[in-house]
């Protein structure tokens, strides 16, 4: 994994002029985001990938956290919190519900869908994740059955502010999984 990226870095240094990323004070023609985008479809990068043995797809991680209850969802997306008697195991992460509801009622799980107007980007966003984020991501990958490609996982993206973005509209899946865990 490490060797792959370092080879890419070496590769980038070999290209002179506009694509070099050395900070000697002259203006780069492309921003780092633009470079990343160019490199995604670059045939040379693909050649290197094939040399390294092609796309390495690892299976999704094992499911470690089992559901402790059957979540009951209302049509508006709300699900009741776990009842008093049930013992909720200790998780390394925590997803807090939305707050400040009338009559001190329990809020919703903070899972939202995000759409671009033309439908070009459809994602699921999970907010208010606290605790061990890596553990949460592994558990999420296991629950949603997301494999890793080339050691990287392009389905899940971390946004600034701690929001976790998953490709596709998987709000119901995520909500049912979280409700099953007892959040």
């Amino acid at each position: 994994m490490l060797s792959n990226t370092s080879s890419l870095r070496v590769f980038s240094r070999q290209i002179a002029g506009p694509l070099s990323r050395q900070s000697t004070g002259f203006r780069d023609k492309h921003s780092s985001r633009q470079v990343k985008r160019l490199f995604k479809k670059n045939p040379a990068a693909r050649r290197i990938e094939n040399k390294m043995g092609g796309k390495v797809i690892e299976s999704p991680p094992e499911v470690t956290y089992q559901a402790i209850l059957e979540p009951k969802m209302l049509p508006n997306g709300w699900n009741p919190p776990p009842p008093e008697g049930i013992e909720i195991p200790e998780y390394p992460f925590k997803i807090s519900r939305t707050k400040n509801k009338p009559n001190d009622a329990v809020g919703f799980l903070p899972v939202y869908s995000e759409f671009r107007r033309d439908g070009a980007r459809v994602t699921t966003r999970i907010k208010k994740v606290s605790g061990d984020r890596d553990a949460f991501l592994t558990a999420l990958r296991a629950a949603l059955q997301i494999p890793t490609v080339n050691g990287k996982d392009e389905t899940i993206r971390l946004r600034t502010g701690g929001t976790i973005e998953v490709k596709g509209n998987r709000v119901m899946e995520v909500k049912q999984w979280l409700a099953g865990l007892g959040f």
Partner: protein
Amino acid sequence: MLSLCRQFSSSLAFRQTPAAACLSTSAAQSQEVVEVLKLNMLKDNPGAVKKKRRIGRGIGSSKGKTAGRGHKGQKARAGGSISIGFEGGQTKFYKLLPKRGFTNKRHKTDMLAINLGTIQDYVDMGRLTPTGGGGVDGGDGDNNKIVTLKDLCDAGICTHSSIKHGVKLLAKGKERLKTPLQLEVSRASTHAIEAMEAIGGEVTTVHYNRLALRALLKPNKFIILPKFARPPPKWQPYYTNWDANRGYLSVQAQMRSLLKERPELEEAFAKALEERRSNLATSGTASSSKDD
């Protein structure tokens, strides 16, 4: 930040003594050459600022001379444009057809539709409780468990501003209705009334004009709460009808609210009704029977 300070001090040290170490930010493996941030190095990222297209500046720009306006004519002139809808002098489309009629929209009373399913969901979420405040009769808190428009707003089903002239109760999601409530709304559909009464709830339709809505939804705005007005003649048939609308001015609705306030009267009423029935049975004339 700390590493930058160290860099700065190291560069100073280099000027003074030639033996200055090149510091690296990361601990062991990679050596990164990092430059000190200077004021003359501040610049936007490539692509952040896009230059505007300047019209009429020479042949090479491809927008010189006529600057994209073609040759002569009204549109080529400064300030040269025609107004929207102008058809060159031909009668405009919206002038060809005759005016017709008038709109009475100013007197329309739009109701906010709230479904039974939504109400049940809010009860399930714990935001709406069956215990409500007083109703039209202004009953006490404990006995009267009437859910008014204010309770619906407080639960979050609607906002004060969304209720323009009232709320109509509709029956979408009536299958999942399971909490009997005593609702007081502006209007109600037949199915909604049926569904609510089937599980043991009550629906009463009450007329609220704008002042009444304000007093109901925002009582803090009043020093003395006003009396709620009767419905205008157009709506009197609606609110005096029990069968179709459960109107609050109907006899049955008034009896119901009276008996709730004073349950001891129920016996007296029942007795009087029996007497009257027997009187009608024996003689054909109606005899007056009064209760205390």
